[in-house]
């Protein structure tokens, strides 16, 4: 369990590097959330308690790269984790399209919540990178889900 969790945290660290250094280097306002895919992945491949531990640890790790109020980022990922865990009894999470749509929807929810909560008046040109970011978050999520599955299988073997 410890090995799996530490490997996943290592991947989260790498994801933070991609999210904060590589992607903004290509297009400054672009943000792609790779952790959302991993959250879906841990629900599919790991147990609830292990998944919850990972979500708390990884979101705290991501908090180091944000100016958001401490606790806000763990709150969002905790909400996502619990919601997706409830949804897994209703929808087939293993389906790639489901993963894409779920991640994109949660990315949009996060952006909308922040915009409303912080009372930010976005201009149309500022909405475009947010929309592109949400679409790319959705597209990246099956890859992250597969990565979690691979880590799990590697340690099981």
């Amino acid at each position, binding site marked *: 369990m410890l090995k799996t969790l530490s490997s996943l945290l290592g991947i989260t660290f790498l994801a*933070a*590097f991609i999210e904060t250094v590589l992607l903004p280097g290509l297009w400054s306002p672009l943000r792609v959330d790779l952790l959302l895919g991993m959250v879906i992945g841990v629900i599919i491949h790991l147990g609830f308690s292990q998944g919850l531990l990972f979500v708390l640890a990884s979101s705290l790790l991501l908090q180091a790269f944000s100016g958001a109020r401490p606790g806000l980022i763990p709150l969002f990922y905790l909400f996502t984790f619990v919601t997706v865990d409830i949804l897994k009894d209703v929808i087939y999470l293993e389906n790639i399209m489901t993963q894409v749509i779920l991640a994109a929807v949660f990315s949009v929810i996060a952006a909308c919540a922040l915009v409303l909560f912080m009372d930010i008046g976005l201009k149309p040109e500022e909405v475009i990178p947010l929309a592109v970011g949400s679409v790319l978050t959705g597209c990246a999520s099956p890859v992250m889900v597969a990565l979690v599955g691979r880590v799990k299988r590697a340690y099981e073997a």
Partner: protein
Amino acid sequence: MERGGTNKIILVVIASAIVIVLLSLGQYRSLSSGLNPVREGFYIAERVVTAPFRFAATLWTDYLALVNVRRENKELVRELQRLRFQHMAMQGLEGENERLRAMLDFKSEHGDYQLLPATLLAQDISVIFRTVIIDRGTTHGFAVNMPVVSPLGLVGRVMAVSPHTAQVLLITDPNSAVPAVIEETQVKGIVKGTGTNVLSLEYVRSTELVEVGNMVVSSGLEGRFPKGLRIGRISEVGKDPRKIFVRIMISPSVEMSKLEGIFGVGFRAEDSQ
């Protein structure tokens, strides 16, 4: 099944309690310093990962292509940035005798402040919160609340610092507030970040003379930022006779998406208090 469900609820309650405690303590922004080991680890990882690329780039640019010219050019660019910054500080204090006196005060107060160069390491994971991480920390003289500038104007202030990294709150962040003054009319207000690429100047009365194109500079009132640092030009003025304060939007002097050649402004010990 029943037992599993109860366990899940207990775990979620515990996790929620942790998050609620964090949120309730969130008003103490210094908590962000608690995550310094993560940023330090990130700094080391980033250095290790990019080391071969930096080595190859340095080998090519500094030795193979242009042995001395490149180095000389870098020094000249740095000197030019330093001079531009000094020019900006001087420009904000030109004019009348009173303002000339203010310039002399500024020079006598901050004449020996240090400009500490830094490079951008990473950006915020969310596009709404405007913070960046730079590759300089306490070992290079950076400290919490230190102003960060570029040759074009004010960038922000340091909100958390570790030995090799510092987290900078940009002036465009919704949590940022800078005491400011309109250069042409000496009308004072507070420049607040909006989370977008524009700033808003608040607490300016409707009766004050404000025009589009006016330059807004730091007033130095709070003591956190030096006086006369360029913030931006007024891009929009919305007066409503029913309201006490006028709605003013500012276009920042520094383009935050292209931060280059940034400096921490090091105060003397007595100035920082």
